[in-house]
């Protein structure tokens, strides 16, 4: 197997792991969003590596990368909208205090 492909896939795996750690361990909404960004970044590396090393003649791979980049931007936009609403209502974006929907 190509070492370049493996390196890229391992980078994606590491970013995925770091992102999961961040999304689960942080109490601040903006920091949780940073974790999700890293998870999506891991997906991006994999997609670019699959396009480059396995199917460079098919541009559906690059198209998929553009869609994931769009999802990253949307996640930020909606996340910041929620953060503003939360900050206005409670004066904080700490997620440990967000227990209104708790059963």
């Amino acid at each position, binding site marked *: 197997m190509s070492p*370049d492909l493996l390196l890229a896939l391992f*980078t994606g795996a590491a970013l995925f792991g770091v992102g999961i750690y961040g999304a689960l*361990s942080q109490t601040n909404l903006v920091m949780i969003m940073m974790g999700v*960004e*890293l998870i999506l970044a891991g997906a991006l590396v994999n997609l*670019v590596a699959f396009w480059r*090393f396995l199917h460079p003649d098919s541009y559906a791979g*690059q*198209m998929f990368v553009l869609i994931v980049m769009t999802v990253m931007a949307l996640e930020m936009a909606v996340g910041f909208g929620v953060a503003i609403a939360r900050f206005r209502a409670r004066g904080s974006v700490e997620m440990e205090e967000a227990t209104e929907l708790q059963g």
Partner: protein
Amino acid sequence: MISLQTVFIAFFGIATIGFGILVFRTSSMVRSALALLFSQTALGAMFLAMQAEFLGVLQIMMMATEMSIMAIFMVMFMMDPGGLGAMEMSHQKRLSILAGVVGALATAGIALFTPWGVVVNVAPPAAEQIRALGTELLGRSMLIFETAGVTILTAMIAATAVALPALQRKRNA
């Protein structure tokens, strides 16, 4: 024989992961946002090393603006954006580390043991890539591309609606 491309992919890969870890290691929110910016920029450089020129430049440009906005939000929303008070802003650390390590090892295992087939070592030239991607966007994948546009519009309206103060929302209704 290790090629220059392998060296660059490894270098930028390590930089991406290193800055990614730094995001959650510093108590300053501004430093976290900057670490994420550097991580995403290194990722863009890694795309360039993989000869995906358009995607690499796009990644660097998008993330530079996105992370700058994130840094501003960090300063706005945090009680201690500079991290001078060394506030603890994490919980369930052991479980999170375990989940992260298991997730990373599982995906690395899949990458290692999957038979990926024939690896192509030659990438199309940059100009050819952009032309072919344009044809893809306006041809076979046009519906997906248009769906992404509509989704962006929906998210913009949703984000603005959610961020409006409750009183103003009531008045509008």
